[in-house]
């Protein structure tokens, strides 16, 4: 048993060493994606292209506009003179957001009435738009308080602190307390990248043996399927651990993400996650005869796993059916674990449900794939 397993492992290692690009392929994309994700996948939005239509042309309206101009979050690219220009700006992607100040804005303000402000957003980029709306709400709130404070004459209606500008849209990123959304994202990126890397590596490695014909060759030897599967998956399990360590290091050293938790919890979580992921890759390989098929399947499956993981979109907000689907998604559990370990520093006592779920998932995936693997040989 050990002789055959060790010779399998030795062979994998030799092949990896001979493959001049292996190290490059294993490491560079991970680090590169980590950097790209680290910088790009954040809720902070700057330089949102903005068109402004000021139909009031009053001191108050100009003051409000100057608030927008003052922040780097918005770039005012057009001071429009009519509604048509605004619509065209949005339609032609020149602006993501348009702010329309209607005539009578300052009069309403002075009368202490709620002064309507129209905000038009380009819904196609809803994420940016939502975030930008949040900023608008903030700016408008500041403006309102200033206006209320500077109002010397007594108001006829309501207390002085009442909102004077009728915008109630609000946007709060979940973890915005420290202003650093990166902290929230980077641990997620670690899990996501590892999932993508290890699933495809495992699936491709096995399908390749099938395609080249070495699988049939190995099958006529007295090796047991379990030994073959172990020989094929242990290397990717180890590579996965290396990946997690490497990308975590980049996150901590480069993006200064705090790591508050216990490294052991991280290790156990990572190991269980990788078992499940390797099982996923193995399962995929049993459904593919050729590398093309494996590629198509990989492409088809990884995106849903990514989207339905809670990486960016909260699971609680998904339709029930999709929520159920997330139950079989190892990434879902690992994201909870890795975020908790990095940012909250909680341990086994809190994370046992997720760890247990991962262990169960790993067991199920590996069992099914070993059974299916035997069948798929005929």
């Amino acid at each position, binding site marked *: 048993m050990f002789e055959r397993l060790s010779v399998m492992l030795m062979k994998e290692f030799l092949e990896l060493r001979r493959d001049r690009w292996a190290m490059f392929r294993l490491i560079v994309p991970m680090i590169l994606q980590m950097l790209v994700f680290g910088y790009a996948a954040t809720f902070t939005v700057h330089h949102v292209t903005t068109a402004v239509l000021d139909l009031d042309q009053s001191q108050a309206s100009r003051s409000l506009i100057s608030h927008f101009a003052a922040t780097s979050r918005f770039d005012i690219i057009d001071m429009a003179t009519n509604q048509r220009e605004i619509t065209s700006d949005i339609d032609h992607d020149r602006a993501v957001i348009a702010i329309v100040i209607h005539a009578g804005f300052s009069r309403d303000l002075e009368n202490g009435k709620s002064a309507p402000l129209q905000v038009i957003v380009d819904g196609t980029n809803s994420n940016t738009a939502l975030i930008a709306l949040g900023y608008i709400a903030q700016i408008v709130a500041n403006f309102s308080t200033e206006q209320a404070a500077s109002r010397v004459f007594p108001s006829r209606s309501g207390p002085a602190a009442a909102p004077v500008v009728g915008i109630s849209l609000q946007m709060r990123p979940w973890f915005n307390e420290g202003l650093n959304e990166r902290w929230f994202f980077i641990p997620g990126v670690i899990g996501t990248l590892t999932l993508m890397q290890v699933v495809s590596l495992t699936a491709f490695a096995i399908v390749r043996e099938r395609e080249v014909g070495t699988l049939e060759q190995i099958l*006529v030897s*007295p090796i047991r399927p379990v030994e073959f599967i172990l020989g094929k998956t242990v290397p990717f399990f180890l590579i996965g651990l290396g990946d997690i360590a490497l990308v975590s290091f980049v996150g901590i050293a480069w993006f200064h993400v705090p790591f508050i938790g216990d490294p052991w919890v991280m290790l156990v979580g990572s190991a269980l996650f990788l078992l499940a992921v390797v099982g996923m890759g193995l399962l995929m390989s049993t459904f593919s005869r050729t590398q093309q098929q494996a590629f198509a399947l990989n492409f088809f499956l990884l995106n849903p796993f990514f989207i339905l993981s809670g990486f960016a979109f909260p699971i609680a907000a998904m339709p029930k059916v999709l929520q159920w689907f997330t139950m079989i998604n190892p990434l879902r559990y690992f994201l909870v674990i890795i975020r908790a370990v990095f940012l909250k520093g909680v341990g086994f006592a809190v994370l046992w449900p997720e760890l247990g779920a991962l262990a169960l998932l790993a067991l199920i995936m590996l069992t099914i794939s070993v059974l299916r693997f035997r069948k798929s040989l005929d």
Partner: protein
Amino acid sequence: MMAEVNEIAVRVHGLSKSFGSVRAVRDIDLAVAQGEIFGLVGPDGAGKTTIMRMLAAVLRPDAGEILVDGVDVVAEAERAKLHLSYMPQRFGLYEDLTIAENIFFYGALFGVPRGERIARSQELLEAAGLLPFRRRLAGQLSGGMKQKLGLICALIHTPRVLLLDEPTTGVDPVSRRDFWAILYNLREGGVTIVLSTAYMDEAERCSRLALLHGGEIRHCDTPQHLKAAMPGALLAIASAHPRDVREAVSGKPGVLGALLMGDRVHVRVDDAERRIPELRAAIADQGIADAVITPAEPGIEDVFVALLGEEKPHEP
């Protein structure tokens, strides 16, 4: 050649396998004696590979029994694997490993002890003429070298039964000679060899042949007996225009088949005495003057074509 037909190394009974609606192997019976070199010949898709794979325990039959070296292959696949060695039509080599590493790997998989593995691979590499290349990556070998390496990997443990699926396809004649030298050597050592081949000269070297067609064994005998069993008589017509000669004789009364063989045409007729003058006349009618007709010894290819009925006899 078959002096010691005492022990049956491979016994197959009622073997069948279908892929969907394709009946690749239909109810086959075989008995191969120990020390035989048994050949499976047949056109593409005849079912040779399918039979080999079932014998090697990589493919489960739909029905039938297989005994290899006394072991029930269907019921005890794992145990049978220790008795046999299988070289698929396309041997799977690790292209990123060297010759020596590939041999080492397959040797270890079969649990061959280290010392024996080294001695044996040395011996086999030498016999195959691959010794100087043992540090070359398998991916950089020529087709023939790859094929020989496949054979060495298949032979690194000492099998009782060796299954070779078209082992010399794509191998140059010199390498094929080396290859056969190795096979004869093995047979001396008591190894039973079952091979499929598309080369008729190789078929001729086998102790017995099974002619397969459409998943069935049509004929099974020694090459000599098969030749003797060929219906009709064979004539060789030499000419500078063999194609025209074939045109001229095809479909004439009594002609059972005409096969182009290089610069000659092999014509199978029902009765040589009667047909030679008729054919001579038919060829002359076509304005071919240089044709020389002689009775010929049938090669296995003629037998093959005749017995598998590739061409229907053309009687008036």
